[in-house]
């Protein structure tokens, strides 16, 4: 993955999938050990894998870290805290937010085919 330097590169990748069926991976996490290491820490996260949607608008905004929102058929998907991206060999747009220790905190991935 590369740091998002030119958000237009990401915007172009998002545009490629407008108005077609895509599969979404969306995740936020503090890690399963956050409350173990710090008992005052309130740990929360959410995860969805292979939600099939179509979006009519997809947009990247903000300045590092970035936000991405997708306006889907009946609602919305968004993620914030995005720092890195990659279009992989399967043409999937992988977006992630990593903290300063290199730990993943958020991921939003868009794929034309179902994730494994």
């Amino acid at each position, binding site marked *: 993955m590369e740091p998002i330097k030119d958000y237009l590169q990401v915007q172009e990748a998002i545009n490629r999938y407008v108005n077609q069926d895509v599969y979404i991976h969306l*995740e936020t996490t503090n890690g*399963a050990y956050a409350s*173990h290491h710090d008992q005052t820490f309130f740990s929360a996260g959410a995860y969805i894998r292979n939600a099939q949607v179509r979006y009519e608008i997809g947009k990247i905004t903000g300045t590092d870290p970035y936000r991405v929102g997708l306006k889907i058929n009946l609602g919305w998907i968004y993620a914030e805290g995005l720092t890195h991206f990659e279009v992989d060999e399967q043409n999937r747009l992988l977006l992630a937010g990593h903290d300063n*220790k*290199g730990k*993943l905190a958020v991921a939003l991935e868009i794929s034309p085919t179902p994730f494994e």
Partner: protein
Amino acid sequence: MEKERHVLVIFPHPDDEAFGVSGTIATHVQNGTPVTYACLTLGEMGRNMGNPPFTNRENLPKIRKEELKAAAAALGIQDLRMLGYRDKTVEFEDDEKLANAMLSIINEVNPSLIITFYPGYSVHPDHDATGAAVVRAVEKLPAAARPKLHCVAFSNNCVEELGEADIVHNISAVADKKLAAIQAHRSQTEQMFGDVTEKLKNQDPQMMVWINNERFWTYKFKN
């Protein structure tokens, strides 16, 4: 360490064996005891991507699969099974089905000792769910036919509620194999490993105790 007929290790994540159990595993292997390691997931939800990132969410499981194989090889495990569950979803599986999947491995392998996590005292939901499934599976066997069940626990309240571990293995004789297993899980351990090697070189007393002693609680069945 008592000589076993066959040891079955059941954990949900590729590195779960590394810090707490790998010395015990290496010792059994050295004693000529066959060891089966059933690992439920590939740690797909691991968060360590590196800075700069060396992988991504989709490729991490491929890396961790290879690391798991390398760790098993370092310990001399000949029967490594990857069960194909998904990280952080084990507790949401059908309880009965999961227990039966564990039972079918137990029946096939016929171990004299099973090592897993102590349900309720192992912090990660997958650890607790895996331990609970193994306990349910063993409970299906008649009491006289049950293998021993040694559990790893590390929640903040484990000693308070379970008492001190009743089994402590000093594994210093195979510490090199243990370190090799820890090192094999590079994506998970490399960050902390620099620190570990430094402390080992200096024979840091706390670190030596931590590395050389593996603690288990014998599971007490209610029925």
